[in-house]
């Protein structure tokens, strides 16, 4: 890769803007696509994304645009950072401007409802591109933007995608790892959002570290169980995009999904919380998608089921927790990866 390349980042939310900043800091020319032309103009004028990443001054080599054609023009690599529910439509339109030489890396943590397709599958369906990867890890946008030491994973079946991602993103404070388990990396990033809601609920109810440790470890087992049933490598869930992301999200009040759980436990209504957040809490949709899939396919996911009941079936957090602690009690079921008697 040459010293300076033109790179597109599609999606000007907090994480998209942060990724644009990381790439621009490495001297590359970045086109940042934002849906709203007014916001794009505002960013170009003020060098700030006042709505999603206030207080962070962006480098001059980021140019915001509301045109996908402009954004894609001349870019070998494109990062897609839009909400999961928008990806299919945006990728479909973006596909008009792509050819087989382009590299697509998405940083979206969600699963398409009904089809249960991962984001890389949507990109494969909506564009002609083959060289597709996912970027995932414990990456709270505000911390990365502030230069806190962090790391991420680029997963792709194509080594060229991993190399491109590393080259464009790495910095003294941001380390980039590669792996070839796209399924595990995508699912880890998506499923941890459900557990983040669960941990917010637990904290909101006033529970302490024991409960958090319980949620995290059994949550990891749950993620791994579903992931391996869908073809993921179990070890992926022990890495940055699995347990790493899970820890960051479940312990951080900065996480939108955590906030959803925390505020629900404090008695607020879901509609009010999501309206107030201004950004999408992917975990809400993911909970519904995953719980319905698990029910239909007989995958044992009691924590996801509990969160689903709170979000969509009118259970109070305490009722869901009680049901959760009852789940599997008395059974001799042994959970193979951890060799523990399953109570969650």
């Amino acid at each position, binding site marked *: 890769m040459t010293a300076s390349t033109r790179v597109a980042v599609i999606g000007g939310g907090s994480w998209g803007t942060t990724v644009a900043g990381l790439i621009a800091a490495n001297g590359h020319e970045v086109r940042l696509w934002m849906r709203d032309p007014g916001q794009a103009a505002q960013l170009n004028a003020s060098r700030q994304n006042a709505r999603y990443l206030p207080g962070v001054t962006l480098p001059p080599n980021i140019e915001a645009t509301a045109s996908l054609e402009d954004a894609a023009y001349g870019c070998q690599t494109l990062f897609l950072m839009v909400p999961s529910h928008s990806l299919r439509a945006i990728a479909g339109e973006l*596909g008009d401007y792509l050819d*087989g*030489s382009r590299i697509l890396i998405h940083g979206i943590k969600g699963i398409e409802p009904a089809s249960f397709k991962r984001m890389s599958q949507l990109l494969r369906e909506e564009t002609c591109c*083959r060289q597709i990867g996912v970027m995932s890890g414990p990456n709270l946008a505000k911390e990365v933007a502030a230069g806190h030491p962090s790391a991420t994973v680029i997963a792709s*079946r194509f*080594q*060229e995608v991993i190399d491109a991602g590393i080259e464009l993103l790495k910095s003294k404070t941001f380390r980039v790892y590669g792996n070839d388990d796209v399924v595990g990396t995508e699912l880890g990033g998506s499923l941890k959002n459900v557990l983040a809601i669960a941990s917010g609920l637990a904290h909101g109810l006033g529970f302490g570290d024991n409960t958090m440790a319980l949620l995290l470890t059994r949550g990891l087992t749950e993620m791994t169980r579903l992931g391996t049933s869908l073809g993921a490598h179990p070890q992926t869930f022990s890495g940055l995009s699995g347990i790493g992301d899970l820890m960051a999200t479940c312990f951080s009040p900065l996480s939108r999904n955590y906030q959803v759980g925390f505020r629900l436990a404090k008695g607020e209504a879901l509609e009010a919380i999501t309206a107030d957040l201004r950004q999408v809490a992917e975990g809400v949709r993911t909970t519904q998608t995953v719980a319905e899939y698990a029910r239909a396919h007989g995958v044992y996911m009691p924590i996801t089921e509990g969160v689903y009941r709170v979000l969509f079936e009118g259970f109070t957090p305490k009722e869901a927790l009680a049901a959760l602690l009852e789940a599997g009690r008395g059974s001799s079921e042994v959970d193979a990866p951890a060799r523990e008697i399953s109570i969650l």
Partner: protein
Amino acid sequence: MIEWGPMTAPIHPPLSGRIFSFNAEREAIVADVVERELARKGHAEQALELAINEAALHEIARLEGGPGSDRWREIYRTLGKKALSDKEALFRSLVAEAARDIVGNFDPKVYRFATSVVPYLLSFIMKPQGPAQLPAQRLSERIQAQGETEAVRALAQKGTVILVPTHSSNLDSIVIGYALYQLGLPPFTYGAGKNLFSNFLLTYFMNNLGAYKVDRRLGYALYKDVLKAYSTVILERGYHSLFFPGGGRCRSNAIESRLKLGLVGTGLAAYINNLRANKPQPDLFVVPATLNYHLVLEAETLIDDQLQRVGRSRYIIEDDESTQAGRIWSFANQMLRLDTSMVIRFGTPLDCFGNPVGADGVSRDRRGRPVDRRTYVLRDGEPRHQPQRDAEYTRELGQVIAESYRTNTVVLVTHLVAFALYQLFQQSHPGMDVFRLLRLPEDPVFNVRTVLETIDRLRERLQRMAEHGVLVLGREVQTATSATLLDMALPIFSLYHTRPLAVREGDDVVLTDRKLLLYYHNRLTGYGLEEVVAPERVLA
């Protein structure tokens, strides 16, 4: 859908093909393979030595002191002392030797003879041998070609076609050859297992009709590399080729999903080389096809082999005679027992990256937008090989081929009835594994009403699936009543095999050969049809 008349001439005007001038290029092809392999080793001493040593050790172990082993021992013993130029000369001679062993031959006279005789021969051997349970049919009705036949013809004139069919029987290449001839396509070259060259009649035709030899015993890297290089070279030179990506004949009769993509991958290598050489017609088109037989000649041997592989020690063949009989069946004998029709269905042609290609030669994405396929291999504006990337492209192509096999599977009456009967049997013994099911002492019996209800339910589901493009229904399965379907299937089940698969006794259907029912039933596994079968679960 094309249905051919009773003809010996192609239905379409024959297209010319490079194959007719193959013999003039043979030595040039061998020389090309040698130079490429040498260049691939970079003329490096260590790489040459490694390749020769590995070949020698493999052959010494394989030959176990038999004929030819002394030569390899000598090579192994003296290699280290040779000068680089001698090592290079030895490498050249070994590559040339392997290439000459592989390389095919094409005699237009034999082709003309074969195309005038084979249809009569096939007509003859496809006549009913026993009581004429089926009305005598014309050959053209017995072998039907469906699907994207026009696109295949069009693309054969725009580039090189790689046909990748499913593989059920040693008859496949003959039947495909006949189908290609009827479509007016020139013969395709294909790799045939060297074991097939033991039959003198078959050897004569294969030796003269463009088949090249693949010796599966030679597992060393040098031989495999030469085989791939040979395939790449002939594809680059525009010879339409046929690969069976399922590997050998499918043992279970399930639709092949685990594909071996080594030779398929040579299509992409040839495409990149063509682009680099600025050839006027650089394109290669991959055409999946399904071969759907009512009955498969080697079914008994294949399912035995499948059960041995799966069950290992749990499955012991009780009837050794039948296995021996399977071995000694001559190819001719097997053919004479054939008495049924089959369907070849050509799927949507693909480029080397899995995009569908229309008859216009244009690749399209799933939204129907044209795709410039060159861009997949361009780096800094130039077409480049990138082994890891290219292997991944081929892996994805393999997934599309496997999906094409599923959606282009044609459900024939024997598949449907075998699925219904075996599932009724299996579901009447919940929790019992296949090996125990096959060993149960009594022949299972089902009331005919239960069987007909099951066929009705299955067909209703299959029709919905066919409407959604999940698979394709054969003509009879689309139109006949369940009673007619059963009446058609049972006589076919009695035609070839050592024992009938199932027979009607009054109001009952008796399952007389569960192993073969399992084999034919397997064709429809993987579609989620099991749940449709039998809520009754009651033995009649």
